[in-house]
């Protein structure tokens, strides 16, 4: 019975979006508690509200706007670096949850493996991201920060080329 209730909860769109918005709001309070600069709680809570609304609207782009607001608040608050990493993880979790909430609209029949897979994905990605941040942080503090410009430029150019190629392909196929 407990498993059934848990399954119902996890495949409920409302639960997912509430969890996403709640996660962002909690992270906002956490960041605000350790802030060094201005009081930015309002901005971050608006971000959390946008995340919640995005689940209702079914738009991940609205989630993106909410997360940008939340990130901006995190930057302005200037908390310890670890908290910024936590905020990043919360943002990623919120995005995954909103994606799940869009998927779970209309209370579909869902296998438990779907949300278990989402949870594992989140855990693995977060762990790797933290490792990546640690390495990047190490590199950035030990070497020159400008060294980061090269991979960013490569990624940016690569993506621009990909977008251009796809646009070209679509134009030809029409």
């Amino acid at each position, binding site marked *: 019975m407990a498993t059934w209730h848990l399954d119902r909860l996890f*495949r409920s769109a409302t639960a997912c979006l509430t969890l996403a918005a709640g996660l962002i709001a909690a992270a906002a309070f956490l960041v605000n508690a350790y802030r060094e600069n201005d009081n930015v709680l309002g901005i971050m809570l608006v971000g959390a509200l946008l995340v919640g609304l995005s689940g209702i609207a079914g738009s*991940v*782009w609205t*989630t*993106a706007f909410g*997360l*940008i607001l939340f*990130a901006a608040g*995190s*930057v302005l608050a200037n908390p310890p*670096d670890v908290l*910024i*990493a936590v*905020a*990043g*993880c919360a*943002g*990623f979790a919120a*995005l*995954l949850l909103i*994606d799940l909430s869009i*998927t*779970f609209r*209309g*209370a*579909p*029949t*869902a*296998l438990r*493996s*779907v949300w278990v*897979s989402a949870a594992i*994905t989140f855990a*693995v*990605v*977060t762990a*790797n*991201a*933290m490792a*990546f*941040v640690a390495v*990047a*942080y190490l590199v*950035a*503090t030990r070497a020159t*920060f400008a060294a*980061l*410009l090269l991979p*960013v430029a490569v*990624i*940016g150019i690569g*993506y621009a080329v990909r977008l251009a190629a796809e646009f070209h392909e679509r134009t030809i196929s029409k």
Partner: protein
Amino acid sequence: MITFDVIKLTGNRELRRRMPLFDVALTLALAALVAAIATQRPALLALGAPFIVALAAAFALWKPLEGSVVVGVDTAHIVEGDEVNLLVDVVAGDHDLDRVEVELEVSDHLTPLTSLRAITSVPASGRRRVSFAVSADEWGIAKVEGISVRATDRFGMFGGAVQRPAGLMTMRIGLAEERLSANLGAEQFRSIVGSHLSHDRGDGLEIADIRPWLPGDSVRNINWRISNRRQEPWVTLRHPDRSANVVVVVDAHDGTGDAQRITHRRSAAAALALARGHLKLHDPVGLLVVGHTVRWLPPRLGRNHLLRIADELISVSDVPTASLRLYRPPALSYIGRETIVVAVSPLQDPLMIRLIAQLRSRGNPVVVLEPEIAPDGPPRLQARVERPVTRLARRFALAEREAGVQSLRSHGVALVSWKADEPATAVMAAVQRMRQSMARAGVR
């Protein structure tokens, strides 16, 4: 499982698209990177790090989606009121299918008992079955109107959707026999259409006539009591022990909306009950469905024939719209001259009225059950939205129908109106009374 359709996922270009989640993750990752560089604070990279890792992993682990989706149903014979399971098998190819969403859309005849969406994941070379319970609420041809399959990778960043308009997926929902038999008894039907004995004379039990003996008459048929009284040989003539052929004519008339659906259902229900009753009494029963096309089942006996009739009647629920009916094949030639005809028709169609009149003028005993057509909406609302031309056309149609009905009555066709809220038994009693009065008046 009876398979309707197979949707191939392998090699489908629609499933290789970027999903919105990819664009969002990329935007957020780039924003974090740019912010980190612009403010020269490497810690800000941590904000976008999960998105960067997810993007990199999605790129690195991406594999084309391979597999197929098989759609079917668990039973071949569906009767209204049954609970049916629509089955969807998701079959994976060489790689895992991490997230597959299946959504079905069904026609009005089926009512979903659970959500018609399901999300599943299938391991490599595996198969997973998803079941959607629906209730076959209404007799007729039910359709799975559409199926959409949406598949993405583990990260939800690459994938796509395949939609299949599934007009081909049709199921025939039969009428529930036990429900009909509760309303309409076989014996009752037997008495409705008058004598079931043939008008031919032969070696039966029922006395048809007596007359003086003629050369060629068998001595076994001499009625000794009357012969003794009259002092000359008289013979008794008997009806042969043969049941009469009965043909049920169902009017699959054109119309629109719920009114048509309800009328068709009642017509088919009455026709099936009629056929069932007569077949039970060993009367060969034929079926003639007259609508956009003519469907004909010649009079036969047996339970299989009843099933054939039931199957044929389902087609009544799926008549095309009026604009498609440009030509109707002649139906008169199918019915023998001595056959008893019971037509179930709202008599809205002049062609149907003409057919009944022709049958009657040939000498067939004809009874018409006339199910009343339910109005489409409240009369006041109808009057408000109806244009004057439409109203005039409606009046002309009514006048034409009335003239046709009067013509049928004058030819000795027994017409019995069947109101929407009237039980079938009451209607059958009315038909019986009418047949008796016709018999007394000498009308066959």
